[in-house]
């Protein structure tokens, strides 16, 4: 793939910020959208807009076919055996909360354990914390070793017949670490636990096959993979989904309703109460078509090369501290760093004046920040449209950070 050609599909990238060409390196926060996705949103509202699963008129049929088509595209994209196991959510966060409510709260009790990790996004910690608070279960975390990878020996020692859920991020949003999900899942299953995988930072960037990963549930979000915000997905093994209580009550999720009780619709509709974000789901399908046309393998290879280049260039910067694995083959396209004792917010503000957009802060991963012994970090994260010149501009801008902020007494 040629990132220079790909860039032409993203209108937003063709602009100057603070008098400099925009270098958008905040893709782990959200990705930009290609013209194809923007056009499909407009086309849908101009031609096909209607509610789904309700209306018998032509527009209602068209909207339903497109919406269900998008579900099938998500299923194929992550290697799910059938669209029946794909539930549209508003975000990966909502997917995790759905599981914490509809699975964990009905099945856990005192003495049970949930295992998460120290490198998780807050959504994969707090959702389970709340479930533990309500059930008396205990939340434990696999430690991070050498600031880069999960301590799998410690994980094995943590597993027991009390372990009910193991929930792990596929790719860390801070360190970029690609976690060994298949290995983790196998050991969890041996202990009798179910396995949840948070794919928010993985599905946009590398080929995903839930069958090979061996997890029981996989969550993702559209806005980090070229689709709009407000649409995400949860995949679950159908037998587990069938067995679960609903999450939200409302329209579309029921089979029949009396005043004193109701029966539930079949999966996946049992978990989709209310009118969904129809256009956004359809646009997620378009984003998947777009990514497939380029090829997830090609996108992954491009990000490995760009990350390799970024790590090399960033290592030249005086006083830089880079976090996470150093081998680009073992990580996603995410590089977190600090410059001496300069606060990441100063780094973020100064490089922005060079047109370079990076994230600065704790990245919704405070336990990991604490483990790394830092309050915050700067983070550059790449996608299919990023090019080496943008890394060069970041490195040049970092020189300016040192010039402005350096020399503290």
């Amino acid at each position, binding site marked *: 793939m040629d990132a220079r050609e790909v860039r032409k599909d993203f209108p937003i990238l063709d602009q100057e910020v*603070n008098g400099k060409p925009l270098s958008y390196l905040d893709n782990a926060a959200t990705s930009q959208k290609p013209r194809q996705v923007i056009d499909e949103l407009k086309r849908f509202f101009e031609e096909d807009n209607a509610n789904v699963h309700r209306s018998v008129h032509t527009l209602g049929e068209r909207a339903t076919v497109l919406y269900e088509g998008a579900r099938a595209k998500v299923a194929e994209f992550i290697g799910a055996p059938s669209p029946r196991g794909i539930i549209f959510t508003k975000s990966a966060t909502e997917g995790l909360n759905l599981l914490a409510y509809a699975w964990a709260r009905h099945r856990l009790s005192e003495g049970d354990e949930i295992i998460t990790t120290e490198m998780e996004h807050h959504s994969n910690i707090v959702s389970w914390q709340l479930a533990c608070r309500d059930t008396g279960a205990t939340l434990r975390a696999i430690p991070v070793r050498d600031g880069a990878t999960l301590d799998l020996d410690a994980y094995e020692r943590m597993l027991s017949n009390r372990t009910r859920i193991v929930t792990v991020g596929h790719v860390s949003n801070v360190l970029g670490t690609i976690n060994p999900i298949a290995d983790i899942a196998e050991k969890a299953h041996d202990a009798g636990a179910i396995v949840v995988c948070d794919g928010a930072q993985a599905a946009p960037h590398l080929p995903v096959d839930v069958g090979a990963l061996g997890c029981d549930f996989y969550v993702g979000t559209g806005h980090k993979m070229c689709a709009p915000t407000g649409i995400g997905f949860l995949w679950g093994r159908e037998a587990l989904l069938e067995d679960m209580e609903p999450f939200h009550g409302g329209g579309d999720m029921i089979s029949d309703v009396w005043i004193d009780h109701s029966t539930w619709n079949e999966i996946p509709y049992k978990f989709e109460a209310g009118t969904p974000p129809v256009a956004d789901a359809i646009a997620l399908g378009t984003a998947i078509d777009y990514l497939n046309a380029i090829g997830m393998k090609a996108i992954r290879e491009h990000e490995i090369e760009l990350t390799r280049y970024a790590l090399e260039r960033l290592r030249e910067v005086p006083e830089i501290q880079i976090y996470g694995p150093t081998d680009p083959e073992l990580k996603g396209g995410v590089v977190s760093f600090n410059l001496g004792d300069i*606060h*990441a917010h100063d780094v973020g*503000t100064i490089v922005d004046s060079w047109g370079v957009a990076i994230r600065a802060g*704790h990245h919704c991963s405070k336990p990991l920040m604490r483990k790394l012994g830092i*309050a915050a970090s700067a983070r550059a994260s790449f996608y299919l449209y990023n090019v080496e010149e943008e890394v060069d501009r970041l490195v040049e801008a970092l020189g300016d950070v040192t010039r*402005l902020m350096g020399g503290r007494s």
Partner: protein
Amino acid sequence: MSGLDELYKEVILDHYRSPRNRGKLEPSDFDLHRDNPLCGDEVHLYGHIEDGKLVGVAFEGKGCSISQASTSMMTERVKGVNLDNAEELAHLFKRLMQGESLADDERLGDLAALQGVQKYPVRIKCALLGWNTLLEGLKAYKEKHEG
């Protein structure tokens, strides 16, 4: 670059690089640790009060240049000031951060240099951290001695 130059004025960078009144203060009449959980700025503020005046003020902390410089400049400005005036200054500074054009207000002195923060809404809470801590310290002191 003009926006950036306005944010990182030389006087602000000077306070960031060489903070004034840095360290612990003993004895002290208030001693408070506060942080901005979203960005990780931290300030530990000490105040020593005699005859209704803030005769000693010092801080420890870590965080971004704006939070640390603003706190350093604050300690310089409020040292030796009576408590009511210190409080008034804190409220005046908050109004500056809320977007009022107070740069010419003589009471602010060097603090007016922080006006550039107005254009960076995310950073306003950084500039306010030291001041909010001061207001809390003064309030606690007053409650203890007047209540």
